[in-house]
């Protein structure tokens, strides 16, 4: 088993938006896709996924629709809204700034 990193607070929403922006998914599909695009390096608590999904839906960033999954079960599908795409873009930029600043700070050498 590869070592897993802890998810930083507040980054789950961003990951979900990214995962859903790649195509509509049901909750379990969102989880699988996050695992896939992070290479399984981030530990996601499955029970925490749904509160985050509901929160994003409530904020109008995700749209939902009941449909049938690949094996004919009823499932709720999440898709990203224009507001969600806008948020994803803004949060990605903020994230890059944070990473840049942190890396610069942590690489600083004693003068």
């Amino acid at each position, binding site marked *: 088993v590869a070592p897993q990193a802890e998810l930083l607070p507040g980054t789950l929403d961003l990951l979900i938006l990214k995962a859903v922006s790649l195509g509509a998914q*049901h909750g*379990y599909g969102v989880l699988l896709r996050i695992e896939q695009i992070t290479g399984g390096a981030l530990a996601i*608590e*499955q*029970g925490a996924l*749904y509160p985050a999904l509901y929160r994003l839906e409530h904020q109008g960033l995700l749209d939902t629709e009941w449909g049938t*999954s690949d094996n004919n079960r*009823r499932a*709720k599908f999440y898709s990203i809204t224009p507001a969600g795409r806008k948020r994803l873009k803004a949060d990605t930029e903020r994230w890059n700034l944070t990473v840049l600043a942190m890396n610069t700070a942590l690489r600083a050498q004693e003068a």
Partner: protein
Amino acid sequence: MALLARLRSFWRHALHRSDLERNMSDEWQFHLARRAEDLVESRGLSPEEAMRIARLEFGSVEKYKEEGQERLLATLAAFFGALALLLAMIGLYGVLTYLVTHRQTEFGIRMALGADRASILRLVMTDVVIVLAGGLASGLAVSLVSVTLLQRMLFGLEPRDPMTMVSAVCLLSAMALLAGYLPARRATRVDPMVALRSE
């Protein structure tokens, strides 16, 4: 009419919430079933074992429990609220019945002098409305101030939510008017002759 429309949508939303919860559990069931299938496939587990692990991974047991406790607390609070309302109604009813009995002679004289039933009813109901107005004014004032303390217990609801306030005022008013109307109607049934003779 805009207010009416808003009230209606508020209640529809409140009723809609149980739908939402059912959807939620459907969704979780779906998740667990799919996860279990994947575990069967990838690790060659028995379906029962796979389901057990899927549940463990989901980590929902504790959350379910917590949610259940919060719901129980909310149900209890609603129950005691309803009980308090019932007691208030009985109290108001009792006091007004006493008052009406006490003023029976007065009502008899008024009716003997030509007061009709409607005016007697109005006389008693005016008292009810005065009590009600006082209660609503102080109740609203206290709840507007104290609701911030409860903020952490509100879900999907703003403190000082206007629709909640309007609904509470309507419910309490309706109950108070009902509790007052029964004794008031009795006051109009006083037979002037009986009332005067009993003096």
